[in-house]
């Protein structure tokens, strides 16, 4: 077990290193002059000398491999550099932004799991085919609706037409409701689709017939046998779902004018503040890797078929076929 853990942690670190490399390549090696972006685009009042000074300050005058090694060394010591726009350390900015985002992400995830999971289970357990069809039609709809528009529609409805919740800001639990719902929509739709596909596959398994043949009731069959098996493949998608929450936060926090990681991302991209953007990307990768590590450690406990030494864990869980995301609705629908 300790050996397994060591291997997995090493793999996780490998992914992080690679994520750093990717973000470096994207941000600093793509064509486009980061320095002129830094000092304000095409402003002509900047002398070449000033540009060079900035280049030297951020190390952009050195060749790319040298920059890569230098920044990697900094990152390893926990130094993500300084924001170009504000001059503050990136770690500090990230630290401030994490809290509010965790709040709406947790609330959103909760809603997504309860509503999305409940919808999938309900649709497959009900004997009313029309109801099942209706329930299964919802997730594809949820995936298609742009969440920025959904957030605005919520504001229109529940802040203006019926003034129940504040439209902006982050004071008190009431301000959490609409952002959490906005964030939960795409996440919940994906949860419902993945779980639905898994449930549908599981329901076809002959062991479900065995359970019915024992005289077990619907609750026992659907929750005890079907969901217990169907949840396992869905569990491996947790990492992607959490990553999706972070993407959603960018839009949600902009719509509701809340401070947080998402807002920080939007403003940093707007200002082309590359060190901050790289910090956020690295943070997202850390979260993803950590979540998957936990899932991998929990998975063998829940599924006795998986040996704890399996190499399969090395692969990031994600659907290999579009069908796994698409097949939530029955083929006839």
């Amino acid at each position: 077990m300790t050996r397994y853990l060591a291997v997995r942690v090493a793999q996780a670190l490998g992914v992080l290193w690679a994520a750093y490399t990717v973000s470096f390549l994207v941000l600093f090696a793509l064509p486009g002059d980061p320095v002129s972006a830094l000092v304000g685009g095409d402003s002509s009042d900047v002398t070449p000398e000033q540009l060079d000074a900035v280049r030297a300050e951020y190390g952009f005058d050195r060749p790319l491999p040298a920059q890569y090694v230098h920044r990697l060394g900094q990152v390893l010591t926990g130094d993500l550099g300084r924001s170009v726009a504000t001059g503050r350390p990136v770690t500090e900015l990230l630290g401030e932004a994490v809290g509010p985002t965790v709040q709406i992400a947790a609330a959103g995830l909760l809603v997504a799991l309860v509503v999305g999971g409940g919808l999938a289970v309900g649709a497959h357990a009900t004997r009313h085919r029309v109801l099942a069809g209706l329930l299964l039609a919802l997730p594809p709809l949820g995936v298609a609706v742009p969440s920025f528009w959904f957030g605005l529609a919520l504001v229109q409805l529940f802040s203006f037409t019926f003034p129940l919740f504040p439209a902006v800001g982050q004071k008190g639990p009431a301000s959490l409701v609409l952002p959490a719902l906005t964030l939960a929509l795409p996440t919940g739709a994906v949860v419902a689709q993945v779980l639905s596909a898994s449930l549908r596959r599981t329901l076809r398994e002959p062991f479900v017939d065995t359970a019915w043949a024992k005289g077990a009731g619907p609750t026992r069959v659907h929750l005890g046998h079907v969901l217990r098996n169907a949840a396992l493949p869905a569990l491996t998608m947790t990492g992607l779902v959490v990553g999706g929450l972070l993407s959603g936060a960018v839009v949600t926090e902009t719509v509701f004018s809340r401070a947080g990681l998402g807002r920080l991302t939007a403003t940093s991209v707007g200002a082309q503040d590359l060190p901050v953007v790289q910090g956020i990307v690295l943070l997202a990768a850390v979260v993803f890797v950590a979540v998957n590590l936990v899932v991998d450690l929990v998975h063998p406990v829940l599924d006795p078929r998986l040996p704890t030494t399996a190499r399969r864990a090395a692969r990031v869980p994600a659907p290999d076929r579009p069908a796994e995301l698409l097949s939530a609705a029955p083929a006839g629908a």
Partner: protein
Amino acid sequence: MSGQASAPVSPPLLRVVDLAVEYRTRRGPVHAVRGVSLTVEAGQTVALVGESGSGKSTTAHAVVGLLAPAAHVTAGRVELDGRDLLTAPRRELRALRGLRVGFVPQDPTVSLNPVVRVGEQVAEVLRVHGLADRRTARVEAVEALRRAGLPDPEVRAQQYPHELSGGMRQRVLIAIAMVAGPGLLVADEPTSALDVTVQRQILDHLEHVTTETGTGVLLVTHDLGVAADRAQQIVVMSQGVVVEAGTPDEVLGRPRHPYTQALLAAAPSLRTSRAHALRPAPGEAAPADARLADASSADGPPVGSSRTDARPARAASDTATSASVPVLEVRDLVKDFALSRAAGGGTLRAVDGLGFRVLPGQTVALVGESGSGKSTTARLAVRLADPTSGQVLVDGADVTRARGRALREARRRVQVVYQNPYASLNPGWSVEQLVTDPLRVAREGTRRTRRDRAAELLDLVALPASALGRRAAELSGGQRQRVAIARALALEPAAMVLDEPVSALDVSVQAQVLDLLTDLQTRLGVSYLFISHDLAVVRQVAHDVVVMRRGVAVEQGPVERVLTAPEHPYTAELLGAVPGRRALAAAAAASASVGSAP
């Protein structure tokens, strides 16, 4: 029988009356079961026999109330102890399932919940019906597993399904079905996923348990031999209707319905004669089984006659000379597989020192159960896998390490036909493309000559030329296998490796394909390496047989000798496990008595 004695007083254990079930599909209803009636008395075993699509499993599922969502009972009654189950409320049904009616499903490998311990799954029946509390249920579950013949039940109860073998899992499922002491057991092909020796053990045990407890059994099977051996009553179904019912003696000895007669003639385990004996001389029309027309005959004339056979029969003279060079030979073949670290590492020897020779025009059969290494051998023989050591010779030339052109030449001489014709044909291609592709790859002929050759090949395998434009997906299993055979014949190979070529097919289609293969051998003189798990099939087609177990040939020699006077105990065990032997003797006696009666 005790059931018959009490029949006038109390209603039968199970009575199915005029049952009709249809599947509602997008293309309209499919009538899977039409007016089926049958009765099972307490303590009696009734076998429901039929091929795929006959409606036998649907009938069994209707009895236990486990029909697929698309299936609907449109008429009839299913009475258990005189109470109609079809009109009973759901709650009442639930109370009966598991308690009065036990169900043994088809495939033990997928019929147990993979994430729940085996003991718990048995105990669940008792818990559901309130027959025991948590602790006593556990104790009783272990006891039920013991009664089901599972060794070390205390240990097994703590294990998960994937840790048990297929046979053990089937015993667990029997324990689940029997733990509450049901009056009726419905077993849906309980052993068809298992090896023949395991099948025999399981069926023996099932018989033992049900006789002891006086349980009535509805045994669904595709195997007439199994039915004949195990049942007091046989009900034969075809296309949704019961075509014949009676005791094994009646059904096997004096079958009245043509379908039963045909089924009987096709059942390999009940066929006494070798197909060779029935073989017509070259030039004579091939034996089309008149009673059982293959689906292909719907599209055109049946088997191609000598008129259309452009290939000269080079066989006859060749086969006679026993000194001829073997077409295919393997010597001291060894194949090791590295085991994954999860499985404990090391290597597994799948094939161990195997050697045999396939002479021109002859058939060598490799027989064994799953894991015996017979399919690995097939792959080695056609160089789709590389042996760890040993030699593969084609026409006397060593091709073990052949590469490139030499390898392609060797492969031309030895072609393969796979078990599953659904997987071995590119689903998007037309039959013409499929059959001519070997020629195209070998750059033989023009498009036009290849097309002519394709028609010729189809004729050879008794498919109409009109099939050329069809896609593989539009063909039936038997037709697809014929296409696969035609493709293998395209390059005029000296030998064909047939990897379980008929085990994915229904019995009647099986018989037709086997007849086709023997016919082709006579006409073309092609040799076969015939891989099979089915001794009865082997008996029909092979000249020599190699019996394999765990990679080792335990016995090899001429079919007549090995299958009548086996020297190795394992061969004897395999032979003893072939179903239908009991019944065969009885039926022979019965028909003899009938013959002498008038």
